[in-house]
């Protein structure tokens, strides 16, 4: 938990790849009127998961002022299947900040287990 909080406060990450050693990705949200958007859209572009470990992602918004909001999460099904997902903002993204995606495994795995997920862009979206 402490590690997750630290990651969430550390600022935008450069790499788009999540793995066991680097399970958090942060991306800045700088929209002019973020409160108007209904969803965070997250895209999982590529998955390397030969042992088919169950993968769960949780999504948090950390405002520049430091407040954090748990938005929700999603999972891959099957666990090596990329895809595009939406999580409701509940209109709680009201200011600039970071969206932080964290990778979890369904069961404990050895640190050496081959596993990586490449994330595509994270964007805010509205429904028509």
């Amino acid at each position, binding site marked *: 938990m402490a590690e997750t909080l630290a990651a969430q406060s550390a600022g935008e990450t450069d790499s788009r790849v999540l793995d066991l050693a680097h399970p958090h990705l942060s991306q800045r949200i700088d929209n002019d009127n973020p409160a108007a958007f209904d969803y965070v859209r997250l895209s999982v572009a590529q998955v390397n998961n030969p042992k088919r470990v*169950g993968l769960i992602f949780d999504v948090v918004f950390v405002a520049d002022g430091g407040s954090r909001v748990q938005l929700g*999460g999603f999972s891959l099904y099957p666990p090596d299947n990329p895809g595009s997902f*939406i999580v409701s903002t509940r209109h709680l993204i009201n200011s600039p900040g970071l969206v932080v995606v964290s990778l979890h495994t369904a069961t404990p795995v050895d640190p050496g287990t081959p596993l990586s997920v490449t994330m595509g862009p994270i964007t805010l979206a509205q429904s028509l």
Partner: protein
Amino acid sequence: MKEAQPITKDLNALTDLNRRIFLRGVGAVSTCLVLATLGGCEHLLEEIEHRPTRRWIGSGSHAVNHDLAIYIEAVKAMKGLSPGDARNWNSIAAIHGTALAGFIWCQHGNDHFFDWHRGYLLNFERICQKLTGEKHFGLPYWNWNQNPDVPAPFLDTASTLFTARSNTSMSGDPSGATTGAALDPIFGDSNFYTFSSQLEGTPHNTVHGYIGGGDLFGGGGSASDPLFWAHHGMVDYAWYKWNVELGNDNTNDPAWGDVINSHYIDADGNAASNSAFASTLMPFLSYQYESSPIGSFAAKAPPSKKELQIVETRVRKGADIRLVISNRLHLVDRTIVRIGKPVSLRAPQGSEGIARILGADLKREHVFVSVQYARLPPTSDFAVRVFINLPDANRNTPMSDAHYAGSFAFFGTSIQGESAGASTHHQPKFLVSLSAALQRLQQGQALRDTELSIQLVAVPFKGSFEREDTEIEMTAVDIITTPIIVRTVQS
């Protein structure tokens, strides 16, 4: 035989509902599914009123424990069927997918996740009823929001319901995907498309991923785990709760509703299919739910007959979204075909329309064949299978063929003097999606951009046609593309 009773005003509405929906022609309904459900006209109303109840496992009631005992017997029976019986456990599971091959016919990550699985579950439930002789059996569902632990009968290692799984409770899920905090905003979303996407990606996928992990339940072969059916019972109940109990509307866009979901197997081991529109009415005709809470949304008392009719009307109308046709390739004008002989319709060679259709971006557009007909045929004991670029297609060509696109069927027959368009509710047209078949053929490099043909093959439901010379008068057959209507606007 029961003496015929006078039909009350309320019951008339229900009968009328059935006739309007199934003669609508906008979508196709498997007559086997309907007749098996309804048992013929004289039992129609009684069957609807006493349709099976799918109960909440977590209630611990005597009734749901009884249903679980029947489910155990049904699973044993299906596992005991010979490989040659299409209803055997492995064959039914393989419709969804296998551990080795992944997903096969199931719909995921698109707008047909809900309706495809609804039809899959209903046919499975029918098989359970048939094999156990328990015609009022309803598939019990696992409400993982109220009861995060995998229900005890599925954890008994001596039981046929047991398979190895990565976890036995959702309470350890780090994302909280099945908690009220996650589900409340999802159920508060009134948009059908985004509700579906979130319900699938968050609790549905996470239950598979966290409980199943790398085991059977977590992968393409998940339907082989008896827990799959209790999990998808909850997914279906979630859709029902959102739509019926909470008053949200599905789309009424024919581009969604007229898509035919197929590759099911019915209680007699025969191929079955139904339209997406038809699936929205299944909880009114074929089964009902014992209500339970999800997040902040409480359980509801069963609706009165009058309330049910009001809700059914609303569900049937859906939300008003226009169908936009971006391309149309005309294949044929008025023509009469006999069901005993397959028909092949070819687009004019060298036509620009062929290149546009074959070049459609299937992520952004649907491709359909649109078959308009003048009137209902005199018999309706058959389905019509649609193939792409397979001139030799015949009634023995399996639906597993890569060229197979889908099928449609007629329900009811024409009354002399009545034309198909007589009712203001009746649109004498079928739409069958070609998108999945086109994608398969493109990936297999089996398409040439100068050739496009559609084959229509009538196949009797039971061995042979009642009348092989039955004619269908088609007024137009076109291939159309429509944009995928609902998009999110990205920042």
